[in-house]
């Protein structure tokens, strides 16, 4: 290749590369779909212990994994329902595991210490884990809180069976007509395929760490 051409390509590559790097610092647009194998994790719980799905004793059949947080009003509106889900499904082998992935510098309310406070106030009876690096949220493709992934245990692996909202009424639990997560877990427990494995919902966007100061 001619020297001039080489030089041109080298120069042109810079802005293209810069663009790619800049755009990759955003929230993930990929992540899991129903049917995908979900990666395990080893995250710090509010009691100081480390929790992974494969070593979490109650997770005999699967896990109701919920990306949530302290500050978001939608997440708060679902707190009691999340506790209720654990009360109902942990004895049946599908415990709730909650993960907070928010950037604490953006939302001080979502700090580890505040997670501990909230868990104590509300009497959370499930792990409330701190995804400080945000790697788990990014890998799963979690975009907002609350965002649910129902996972079925398959030997040592976990398969995604449902992704989306808890139900169809964030403000009023008693008015919810479609309880998506309950329906999905009930179907899995009965050995059926999940009839609705994906729903869209509104919540507070997960607060991603910025790669550089903007």
């Amino acid at each position, binding site marked *: 290749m001619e020297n001039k051409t080489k030089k041109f390509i080298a120069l042109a590559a810079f802005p293209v590369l810069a663009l790619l790097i800049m755009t990759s610092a955003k929230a993930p647009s990929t992540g899991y779909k129903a049917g995908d194998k979900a990666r395990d994790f080893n995250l710090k719980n509010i009691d100081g212990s480390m929790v992974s799905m494969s070593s979490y004793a109650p997770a005999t059949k699967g896990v109701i994994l919920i990306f949530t947080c302290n500050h978001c009003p939608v997440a708060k509106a679902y707190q009691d329902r999340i506790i209720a889900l654990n009360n109902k499904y942990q004895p049946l082998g599908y415990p709730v595991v909650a993960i907070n992935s928010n950037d604490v510098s953006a939302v001080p309310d979502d700090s580890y210490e505040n997670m501990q406070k909230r868990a104590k106030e509300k009497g959370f009876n499930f792990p409330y884990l701190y995804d400080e690096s945000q790697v788990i949220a990014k890998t799963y493709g979690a975009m907002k809180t609350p965002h649910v992934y129902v996972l079925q245990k398959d030997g040592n692996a976990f398969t995604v069976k449902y992704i989306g909202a808890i139900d169809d009424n964030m403000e009023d639990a008693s008015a919810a007509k479609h309880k998506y997560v309950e329906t999905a877990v009930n179907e899995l427990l009965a050995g059926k395929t999940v009839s609705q494995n994906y729903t869209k919902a*509104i919540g507070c966007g997960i607060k991603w760490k910025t790669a550089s100061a903007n």
Partner: protein
Amino acid sequence: MPGSGNNGTTFDNEYMLKHFILILGISLAAKAYGQDVKMVNFDAVQKLMERNTDTTYVINFWATWCNPCVHELPNFDRIDSIYKGKEIKIYLISIDFPKEMNSKLAPFVKKNHVKSTVWLLNDPDYNSWIDKVDTSWDGSIPATLIINNKLKMRKFNAKELGLDELNNMVSPFVTKN
């Protein structure tokens, strides 16, 4: 009859003062009154999306509890000013909790002097209408749809928009008029 002169003319000091106070009073009342936030279900939003007139509709989905939404919100009133006289209508569709209409949303709109029309969308089964706005939309807010069926143009973006970004989205619709 207005005039200078000093035989009981209407434009004396007393006249001026009375009318000034009246006009001031009306303006203050109008400012304090602001807009009445309407509560709607998705049908109302669907109707906007189906309009087939010269008007370009800018439909923003937001909530007072969503910080990026609140941060970008003033840009919509700014766009409205920039395109004054053009056929553009802005609707700020809030998905705040319906029970917080009077305790959170209305006071927010009043305090921030939000001029663009604000609707509270009370249609809790989000999964049933998110795709109707845009199938690429995962439901995160803020999200903005710009649509003009007569021009067969639509643009959708589910992210916080800076003023320049929003302007760049809107201008192609308006320059075609």
